[in-house]
Structures are given as structure tokens and as C-alpha cells.
């Protein structure tokens, strides 16, 4: 009896192990099929996020240079649509890249309408996945994103 139980025990745990491998392997295999970048850049994750969120191959390094040229202590206003995860991600990546500037992420709609008339003190306005209002001067367009100077 003990011998039968032991054999059953071995069969049970072997079957469980095989099932675990059989169910777990396909997601891992599909994950390994991603194309490998020949030599990733120092900003390769941010580049990838920007491409995904802005639908355009934007180089994060270029944005870092752009933000660095803005007047230092001034705030960067980032306008996003918080219900849209792409727009929100784009806003966060811009906030990440805009250091050392302080940033403010503002939701589109009433929140943005309240702040735009007094946004002349900002270093720049970044519209993420949103159209720029007419009262804001045009800026540089990067896919679904536009970086504008503050209104005069």
C-alpha cells in the first residue's frame, strides 16, 4: 500500500510540474520574440514610451536638450487627458525628462481652462495627445505632442 501511495505521489507531482511548464512556457516564448535593438541608447526605455504614447519616433535625448534650454527656475505645464492612458503616460515621461524644472500636470477641460490664461509665467506648455487651444502660440510638434512657448 505504501509503495502504491508513493508511486501515486510521484506521478501526481510529476504531472503537476509538467503542467506548470506546459502552461507557463508559451507566454515566455512569445515574450522572447521581441526584436532586439542593435545597441540601445541611454534613453531607450523613454524613447520606447514616447514612441508608443505619441505615435512618433521621438528621441528623449532631444527633448532633454530642449527642456534644458528653457529658463531654469520656471515651471513646465503639462496638459494631459487623465482618462486617456497614452496621454497620461506621455505627460509623465515629459515630467521625467523635464528635470530640473518643476512641473505641473494639469487635466484638460476645466482645470486647464483655469490655468491657461495665467500660464505666461511658465517655461513651456506641453500638450499631450491634445490639440493646442488657439490662444496659445504654436510650438514644436512631436507626433501627438506639442511643446509650445507660453502666451505673451
Amino acid at each position: 500500500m505504501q509503495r502504491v501511495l508513493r508511486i501515486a505521489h510521484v506521478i501526481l507531482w510529476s504531472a503537476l510540474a509538467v503542467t506548470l511548464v506546459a502552461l507557463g512556457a508559451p507566454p515566455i516564448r512569445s515574450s522572447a520574440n521581441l526584436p532586439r535593438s542593435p545597441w540601445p541608447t541611454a534613453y531607450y526605455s523613454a524613447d520606447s514610451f514616447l514612441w508608443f504614447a505619441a505615435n512618433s519616433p521621438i528621441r528623449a535625448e532631444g527633448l532633454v536638450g530642449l527642456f534644458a534650454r528653457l529658463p531654469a527656475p520656471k515651471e513646465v505645464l503639462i496638459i494631459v487627458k487623465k482618462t486617456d492612458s497614452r496621454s497620461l503616460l506621455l505627460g509623465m515621461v515629459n515630467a521625467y525628462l523635464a528635470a530640473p524644472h518643476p512641473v505641473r500636470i494639469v487635466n484638460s477641460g476645466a482645470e486647464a481652462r483655469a490655468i491657461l490664461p495665467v500660464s505666461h509665467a511658465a517655461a513651456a506648455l506641453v500638450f499631450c495627445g491634445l490639440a493646442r487651444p488657439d490662444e496659445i502660440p504654436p510650438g514644436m510638434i512631436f507626433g501627438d505632442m506639442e511643446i509650445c512657448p507660453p502666451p505673451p
Partner: protein
Amino acid sequence: VTSSIIVIVALATVLGSGYGTQSLLARRTLLLNLPEKLALSWLFGAGVISMLIWIFGLIIRGPLLPGLVFCVALVLTWVGWRGNVSPAISFRDLRLFHWFLLVVLAAQVVTMFYLSSIHTLGWDGLLNWEIKARYAYLNNGALPPSYFQDQGRSFSHQEYPLCIPFTQLWLYFWLGETDQYWAKIIFPIFYAAGVVLLACALTRFTGKKFIGFVAAILLFFVPQIAVGGGSAIVGYADFPLSVCYFATVTFLLRSIEEPGCFRFYAGTLALLPWIKRDGVILWLVAATCGALVIMLTRKSRKHFFMLLPGLLVIGLWHGYLRAMHTTTTEEFVPVTLANIQSHSQRLIPIASALLAEFRNYRAWSILWPCVGLGCFYLLWRLRQLRSVILLVAIFAPICLYSATYIFSNWPDYLFHLHTSLGRLLMHVAPLGLVVAGLAAGARLPQRWGRRSSSPICAAPVCERTPGVEFA
């Protein structure tokens, strides 16, 4: 190529300082395998280096900061070199089958490095963790105080601790620039450390090497851990935290018979709140288990003092956050009687969501049914203190994590749960494999995993495993 060499040297300093730390903890009272020593060296090294950068960064900045940290790392490496006079354990009595399993395990670790290199950092990997490393690097080694008060960057959770970002910062110091590609290399190393610790722990507990090796191999086939959101390859802190928690609990279990292990338990326990904020919950559970072990095994009351370093880390970090007037995200409402009453109707949906997560085979394969079966077996056949501690260490965090969603401040608390519960379960998943491994190994005949002079089980006392005792 130059960057690769620099990164290897930087990683070696992390390992060296961790090696010294674990030698100081061991005090020659405990024999560990070389792979086990290296795995622990990585855990302690990441903790020590990040903490040194944080503490020294409060006083000094610029090139002096990495210089000073490097000097301490060198001293610790020297201590480790001098302290480990016990000979390295040979692998000569491994059988062909064991070698085959080891080759598979090594191939999996290499695959994890490959997968890590082709995936980018995940959302939290970039916007919670790497962001801190980058900002600290741009500010000469310390996070600028303005960052902690920056409402606009509250998405990056300024209150999260610095073990992971400051280990990345250490690489940036060596590289001389920020680099999101190299920052990610620390995560497959945590994976390697995790599988080594898992294999060694199960081998000690069951007395069967192949059970340990097979469990470590199976960890790779749990998609949530290998490739899922928050997995070991996308730069999240959850897997490093799970490795540290695993080490804490397994050293506590070993300390029941090997008193020297209690120091390692205390060391890894102190790291838990330093890796991630959720580590405080794990610290609470592991410290409670530690207190139980001290009382039930009649250890000296002095052992209670060993629980204090973790408390000190929690206190220091929270004091620092308060001094910096840190912005906090209001993800949870306060735990008050009124909130408990008004949110109590969430209990059943949360419980069913938890059960659904256990049945999510795409994320977990059949890990949780195996753990369930193992728990049943442990309660039925191996009723002893170690089984109780192990089960508490697995189920208490799951209950506490689930309970936190009762107080979620998100408009849709179930969405909050679905975005994070899988990652939280990762913290106890390696321990779940220990339960399954113990159950699987308990009925096997001893000739399958003969007691030996043991290349894996260095300490003779480790032969008295629950399985062996039961047999």
C-alpha cells in the same frame, strides 16, 4: 565594451561589499555554499551600497560621495576576504542528472539576462525607480529636496525607499552618465540570486538536491515572475523584494535548528522596508514570525534586539521623508472605524478577485493550485513549528495586502486591485514553491536524494529536514 567592463567592476564592488557584510554576520558560525554566499552578497551588497549612498549623500556631494562609498565597499570586501577561511564546497558528488538540471538552470538565468536586454523598463521601472536614480545623479548623488515636494511628480511616489534606485545610481557613478539600458542589469542578477537561494533552501529542507534544482527551474515557468507586468525583467522592485523576503523566511526556518542563521534572518529582515514600501508589511509578518520562533524555541531574549535594525530603517526613512516635507499620494483612506464600516462591503468582491487571481493560469500557470496542495500536505503530514511559520509567512501577507484594498481611495478599487495584486502575490510566490517542493519531496525515498557530505548542504545539521524527520 568599455561600458560593459565598467559595469562589471561596479557590480563586483556591490558583490564585494555584500560578501563582507555576510561574513560579518556569519562570524564563522555558519557554513554556506559559494553560490549561496554570492546570492546573499548581492542582496546585502545592494542594500549596503544604496544605504551608504543615501546616508553619506546627506552630508557630501559630488565625486567625494562615490569615492567614500567605494572606500567602505573596499573595506567590506577585505573583511569578507579575510573572514571566509572555510574552504569552498566542492560539487564533486553531484550526479549527471544534477549537472543536467544545473545546466538548465544556468541557461534560464542567461535567458533572463537576454529577456531583460530586449525589454524596456516598465512603467514603474522608469517612472518610480529609475527616475530617482537619474535625478540623484543629476544632483551630484543625492535627491534634490525640491523633488520630494514636487506635486507634479507625485506619480513617481517620492515616498518609496531607495534600495533599487540607488543601486542603479551606483552604476551611474561608475559609468559617468545615466543609462536606462545598464540600469536594468541589476534585475536579472536578483533573479539569479533568487533561484540560487531557492535551490539551496529546498535542498536543505528536503535533503534532496534535485527537488531544489527542479523548484528553481520551475520558477522560470511562472510567467508573472519571468515576463509578466512587474516581473524580474522590467525593472520593478517586486521581484527583488520577493527574493529578500524569501531569504528572510528561509533563514528564520533554518534558525530553528541552526542558531547562526538568525543573524542572516535579521540582516535580510532589515532590508525589506528599504526595498519597497510594501516591505513594511512583509517586515511586520516576518518579525512576528521571528518573535514566535524566539519564544517557542526558547532562544535568548537578546534575539529580540536583532529585530530592531529593520525598525530603525523604517524610522529613519520616515523621519527623512517628514524632514523633506514629502508629497504623499492619497491612494488609501485612513484606517478608521467609520471607514471600515463604510467600506466593509468590498470584502467579498476583493476575496473573489483574489481567488480569480489564483486561477489566472496565464499569469501563474498552476503555481497556486500546487501551493494549495502543498499547504494541505504540510498541515496534514508535517505538523511542526516550521510548517506553521512557513504558512503564516505566505498567507499573512496575502491577507494583509488584500485587506489594504478595502481602504483604496481609487474611484474604482477593483481596478486598483487588478493593477497591483499580481505583483504583490509575487512577494510570496517563491515561498509557495518551497511549500510545493516540501510536499513533493516528503514521500520520496531517501536513496533518491541520499544524505551526503553534501556540496549543497554545507552544514551537517541541515540533514534534519521536515521530510526526513517525518520519515
